[in-house]
C-alpha cells in the first residue's frame, strides 16, 4: 500500500525530529510507567489478596474467649449472618531453636482432627498434613521456615504453658490470617524470631488446659450480613465465657497491613503519573508550536493546493499521536518491569500465593488512553493554529518577531550586560510562556526528586526516634497472661538486668458519641524511662492518672479532642467500664494506641497489681545467660530485643526503597533533561540564523554557545530555588497523603536531599543543553545566511 504523501512527509519529519520525539516520549513514558506500575500493582495485590481470602476462607470476624465449652460453638454457628465458624485453641509458646540464643515466640493454633479449618484455611506448601493420632506432629508457617532454614523433618523444642514438648515438623504451610505474621505486641514481621505452629486440636487443648473447650473463634459471614449486628450477637453469646470482644478485619494486623499498602499504592497511582503527564503536555505544546511555525509556508502551500483545514489539523495531530504511542509503549514496558520488581519485593514481605505483577488489559488500555489525552492536549494549540492559518497569510513570510525593550528597570540593569547577554534576556522576556514551561518542568523534576529523597530520611527518622528516643529498653518480656506484679522482682533478678518497668496492655472498646473503636490501652508508670510518649518537640509526655492520653489517629477515629470524654469498655477480666477524660493527644509515628497511668488503669479495670509485660534495661553481655533463664520461666511467652526490632524495621522500611530512589533519580533526570533538551532545541532552531551570524561576525564557538546555553542556564538558576521550595511543600504534602492507620511519615529534612537532587537535575539539564550545543559546531554558516528568513 502506498502511503499518502502527507503521511510520508510525517515519517520524514519524525525522522528529522527524532531527538525531540524521544525527549517528549521519555517524559510521557515515565508517567505511563508509574501509572502502569502503581495501578497494575494495586490491581494485582488486591486481586491476589481477595482470591486468597476467598479460596482460603479468611475470617471476617474473630473473637478470643477465656474458655468456652465446645457446645457453645454450635450456638455461635446458628447466629444470624454467620456462614461458617471455627472454634479453636490458640496460645503463645516459646521455641528453642538449635543454635539460636534468643528465644523464639510462636503462635500455636489448633487444627481440627479430621478436616481443614472451615475458616482461615491452612494451605500445605511442603511436606504433609499432621497425623491426627500423633500429638507431636506440627505444621509451621512458610516465612518462619525459610528464615530459620527449617524443613519437614525438623524438630522443635517448645515451651508451652510451662511445659517442654518436642515437636516434629511434618509440613510447611501458609494461611490468609498470617500473610503478615506479627508477634503479639510486635509491629512488624520478624520471621527469624516469630513463627506460627499448627498442631492437633486435642493435643493443644491439653497443653493449654482447655480440654473440651476453645479459646478463640473465627467466623465467615454470609453475604449481606451486618458485621456490627453479628459482633454484637457474638459478644452477647460469649459474655459469660469470658469473651474478649469480637472484631472485624480492621483489627486483624495482617489484613490491616495489606489494606494500608493498597492505600499507599492508590495514592501513588493518583499523584505521581499526572505530574509527568503534565510536563509532557507542556513539552508537546512547545515542540509542536515550533513545528507549525517553521512549516508555516508549507501549510499555506498545502492549503493552496486544496488540502482542507481538517486534513492539515489531522496531519499535525498525528505527530502527537506518534509521540503518545511511543511514550505509552516504552512506559508500558518499563512499568511492567518495575511492577515485576515491586511484586518480587511484596512476595518477600507478604505471604500471598500467586502474588505476581499481573496487570489486566484495562490498565494498559488506560495507559494508552491517558498518554493520548496528554499528547492531544499538548498538541491542541498548535494543531488549531495550523488549521486556522489562512493560506495567503501562511504563504507570505511571517511577521518578524517583534522584540521590545524590557521594563525600564530591567533595561537599566541590562545596560551593563554585553550584547550577547542582552539577546538572552530579551528572548526570555519575549517568550514568557515557553520560558515558564522550562522553569516549571525543571522545578517539578527537582521537586519530585527532593520528595523521593525524603522518604528514606523520614523512615530512618521513624526508626531512630521510635527505637532510640521513645523506646529505650533493651528487651521486652511479654507474659503469657496478665501476671501479678510480683513477677517484676523476679525479672529484676534475671542475669544482667539493671532496671525493670512494667506495662499493662489491654484491649478495650472506646466509644465517643456514635463512634467506636477497638484499640490497645497501655498502662505505663509515671515518669517511665524505658517507654516514653513524645510530643512534637521530642520531649517526653508523662501519662496521667486523671485521664487518658490518645494517639492522634485514635483521637481522629473517635472524633475527640483534649477535654472530651470517652467511654472505655474493657474486653476481658471484669469487663470494667469507665468514662475517661482525654487529657493529652500524642502523635507517635508507629501505630498509636491509648495510654494512661498504670495505677489508674488498674483501678479502672478493677484489677490492681497486674502486669502484662516488663521492659528491661540490661547488660548486653549477659544476653545469652538471660535467654537461657527465660526459656525456663513458664510465665514468659516472648522476649524481644530492641536491637532486633529496630534492625528488622529498618530492613523492611528500606526494602526496595533503594531501588525506588534510583528509579526517581532516573525519572526526574529524564524529566529535567527532556524539558531542557526541548527548550534548547527550540531556542537553537529559532536562533540558528543569529548564531550563524555571530559566527560570521567572528565570534568563537564558545562565545556563540554562550548565547544558547545562557538562556537555559538563566532559567535553571530560577528553577532550582523554586524547585527546592516546591520540593519542600510537595514532600510535606505527600508525607501526609501516605499516612496510614499504622504509619505516620514525619516531614524530616536534610540539606543533603536538596543538594543531591539539585546536583542531579542540574547535571541532566546541562547534559541536555550541551547535546544541543553541538549544533553550534555544525552550523552551516553559508547555508543559513543565504536562505531567506
Amino acid at each position, binding site marked *: 500500500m502506498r502511503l499518502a504523501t502527507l503521511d510520508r512527509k510525517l515519517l520524514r519529519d519524525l525522522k528529522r525530529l527524532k531527538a525531540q520525539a524521544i525527549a517528549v516520549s521519555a517524559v510521557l513514558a515515565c508517567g505511563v510507567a508509574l501509572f502502569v506500575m502503581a495501578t497494575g500493582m494495586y490491581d494485582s495485590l488486591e486481586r491476589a489478596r481477595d482470591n486468597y481470602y476467598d479460596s482460603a476462607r479468611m475470617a471476617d470476624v474473630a473473637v478470643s474467649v477465656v474458655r468456652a465449652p465446645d457446645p457453645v460453638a454450635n450456638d455461635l454457628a446458628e447466629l444470624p449472618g454467620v456462614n461458617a465458624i471455627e472454634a479453636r485453641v490458640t496460645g503463645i509458646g516459646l521455641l528453642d531453636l538449635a543454635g539460636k540464643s534468643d528465644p523464639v515466640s510462636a503462635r500455636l493454633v489448633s487444627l481440627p482432627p479430621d478436616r481443614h479449618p472451615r475458616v482461615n484455611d491452612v494451605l500445605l506448601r511442603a511436606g504433609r498434613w499432621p497425623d491426627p493420632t500423633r500429638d507431636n506432629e506440627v505444621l509451621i508457617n512458610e516465612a518462619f521456615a525459610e528464615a530459620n532454614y527449617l524443613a519437614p523433618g525438623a524438630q522443635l523444642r517448645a515451651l508451652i504453658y510451662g511445659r517442654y514438648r518436642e515437636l516434629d515438623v511434618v509440613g510447611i504451610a501458609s494461611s490468609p490470617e498470617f500473610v503478615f505474621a506479627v508477634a503479639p505486641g510486635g509491629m512488624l514481621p520478624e520471621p527469624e524470631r516469630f513463627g506460627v505452629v499448627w498442631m492437633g486440636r486435642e493435643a493443644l487443648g491439653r497443653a493449654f488446659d482447655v480440654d473440651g473447650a476453645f479459646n478463640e473463634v473465627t467466623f465467615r459471614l454470609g453475604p449481606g450480613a451486618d458485621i456490627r449486628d453479628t459482633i454484637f450477637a457474638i459478644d452477647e453469646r460469649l459474655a459469660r465465657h469470658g469473651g474478649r470482644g469480637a472484631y472485624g478485619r480492621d483489627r486483624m494486623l495482617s489484613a490491616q497491613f495489606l489494606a494500608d499498602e493498597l492505600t499507599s499504592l492508590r495514592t501513588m497511582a493518583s499523584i505521581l503519573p499526572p505530574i509527568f503527564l503534565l510536563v509532557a503536555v507542556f513539552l508537546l505544546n512547545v515542540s509542536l508550536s515550533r513545528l507549525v511555525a517553521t512549516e508555516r509556508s508549507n501549510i499555506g502551500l498545502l492549503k493552496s493546493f486544496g488540502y482542507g483545514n481538517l486534513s492539515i489539523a489531522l496531519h499535525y495531530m498525528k505527530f502527537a499521536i506518534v509521540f503518545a504511542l511511543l511514550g505509552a509503549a516504552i512506559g508500558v514496558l518499563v512499568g511492567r518491569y518495575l511492577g515485576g520488581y515491586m511484586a518480587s519485593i511484596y512476595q518477600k514481605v507478604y505471604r500471598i500465593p500467586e502474588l505476581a505483577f499481573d496487570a489486566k488489559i484495562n490498565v494498559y488500555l488506560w495507559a494508552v488512553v491517558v498518554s493520548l489525552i496528554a499528547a492531544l492536549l499538548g498538541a491542541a494549540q498548535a494543531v488549531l493554529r495550523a488549521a486556522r492559518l489562512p493560506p495567503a497569510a501562511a504563504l507570505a513570510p511571517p511577521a*518578524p518577531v517583534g522584540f521590545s525593550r524590557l521594563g525600564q528597570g530591567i533595561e537599566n540593569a541590562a545596560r551593563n550586560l554585553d*550584547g550577547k547577554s*542582552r539577546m538572552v534576556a530579551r528572548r526570555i522576556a519575549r517568550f514568557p510562556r515557553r520560558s515558564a514551561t522550562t522553569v516549571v518542568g525543571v522545578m517539578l523534576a527537582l521537586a519530585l526528586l527532593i520528595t523521593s529523597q525524603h522518604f528514606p530520611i523520614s523512615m530512618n527518622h521513624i526508626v531512630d526516634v521510635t527505637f532510640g528516643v521513645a523506646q529505650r529498653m533493651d528487651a521486652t518480656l511479654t507474659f503469657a497472661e496478665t501476671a501479678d506484679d510480683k513477677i517484676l522482682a523476679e525479672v529484676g533478678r534475671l542475669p544482667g538486668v539493671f532496671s525493670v518497668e512494667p506495662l499493662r496492655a489491654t484491649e478495650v472498646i472506646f466509644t465517643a458519641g456514635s463512634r467506636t473503636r477497638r484499640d490497645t490501652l497501655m498502662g505505663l508508670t509515671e515518669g517511665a524511662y524505658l517507654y516514653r510518649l513524645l510530643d512534637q518537640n521530642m520531649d517526653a509526655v508523662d501519662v496521667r492518672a486523671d485521664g487518658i492520653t490518645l494517639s492522634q489517629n485514635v483521637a481522629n477515629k473517635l472524633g475527640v479532642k483534649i477535654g472530651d470524654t470517652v467511654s472505655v469498655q474493657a474486653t476481658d477480666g471484669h469487663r470494667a467500664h469507665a468514662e475517661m477524660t482525654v487529657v493529652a493527644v500524642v502523635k507517635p509515628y508507629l501505630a498509636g494506641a491509648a495510654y494512661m497511668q498504670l495505677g489508674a488503669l488498674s483501678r479502672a479495670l478493677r484489677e490492681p497489681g497486674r502486669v502484662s509485660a516488663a521492659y528491661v534495661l540490661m547488660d548486653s553481655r549477659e544476653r545469652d545467660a538471660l535467654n537461657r533463664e527465660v526459656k525456663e520461666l513458664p510465665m514468659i511467652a516472648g522476649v524481644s530485643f530492641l536491637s532486633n526490632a529496630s534492625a528488622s524495621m529498618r530492613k523492611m522500611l528500606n526494602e526496595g526503597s533503594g531501588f525506588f530512589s534510583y528509579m526517581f533519580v532516573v525519572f526526574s533526570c529524564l524529566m529535567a533533561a527532556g524539558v531542557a533538551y526541548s527548550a534548547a532545541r527550540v531556542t537553537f532552531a529559532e536562533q540558528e*540564523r543569529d548564531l*550563524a551570524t555571530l559566527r560570521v*561576525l567572528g565570534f568563537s564557538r564558545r562565545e556563540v554557545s554562550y548565547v544558547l546555553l545562557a538562556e537555559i542556564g538563566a532559567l535553571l538558576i530560577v528553577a532550582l530555588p523554586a524547585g527546592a521550595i516546591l520540593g519542600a511543600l510537595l514532600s510535606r504534602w505527600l508525607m501526609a497523603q501516605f499516612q496510614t492507620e499504622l504509619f505516620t511519615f514525619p516531614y524530616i529534612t536534610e540539606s543533603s536531599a536538596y543538594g543531591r537532587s539539585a546536583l542531579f537535575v542540574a547535571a541532566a539539564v546541562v547534559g541536555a543543553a550541551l547535546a544541543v550545543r553541538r549544533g553550534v559546531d555544525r552550523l552551516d554558516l*553559508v547555508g543559513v545566511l543565504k536562505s531567506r528568513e
Partner: protein
Amino acid sequence: MSREELPVFRLVDLRKIYGQGEAAVHALRGVDLTVAEGELLVLLGPSGSGKSTLLNVLGGLDRPSSGSCFFRESDLANAADAEVTQYRRRHVGFVFQFYNLIASLTAQENVELVTEVSTEPMPASEALELVGLGKRLHHFPAQLSGGEQQRVAIARAIAKRPTVLLCDEPTGALDVATGVHVLEAIVTANNKLGTTTLLITHNADIARIGDRVVRFADGHIRSIEANERRIPPSELHW
C-alpha cells in the same frame, strides 16, 4: 615587499569542489586573482558561476579544496579554525542579501555586538550615522524597512574598521531607490575608511561603481576590466 605593498588578497590556482565522484560540483576551477588595498572590486556573473563561493572562501566561511588564498602573508587555505575565526573577527565585514540582523537587539546594539569585541572600532552611532541611520539607533529590526535593515548590516560590518568588506548581492532584495542608498553606504565606507571592498551583483549597471569588474563564468574568471571612472551610485539607473 613591505606590508603596505602586499596585496590584501592573492589567490593562486584556487579550486573548490563540492561532493565526490560523479556528483562532484566544481565551483571554482582554478582562480588567480590579486586584490589591492582600498580597491572596490565588483564580481559579476550568472548564478552558479562561482562568485559566491569565492567570497565565502575569502571571508573564511568556507575552505578551498586546493590552491592558495593569501590574506596578506597568511594562507587562509591552511589556517586553523581558531585562526580563521580571529581573522573574521578582526579583518572581515560581511553584508548579505538577507540582512541577518539579530531580532532581539536594536540597531545600535546590533552594531555594538561587533564593536564590543573589536580592537579599534568606531562608535556604533558613528557607523550608523555613516549609513544615514543616525536617527534610528534604538529601533528593533522589526521596526525598520528592508533598506534600513540592510544599512544597519553595513554599519555593523564597517564599525570595526575591517580590512575587507564582503558584500554578497546586498541590493538583491531591494527596490532601486533603496538599493542606491545601500550602495552609497558601501561606497562611503570604501572612500572614507579605505576598506577594500568586494561586491557581488547580477546587475551589470552596478558594476560601474567599482575600480575593477571581475566577470565569472563556470568557475573561471572570464575577464577582469578596470573602469575608467567610478560612477557614484546616485547616477546609476537600472
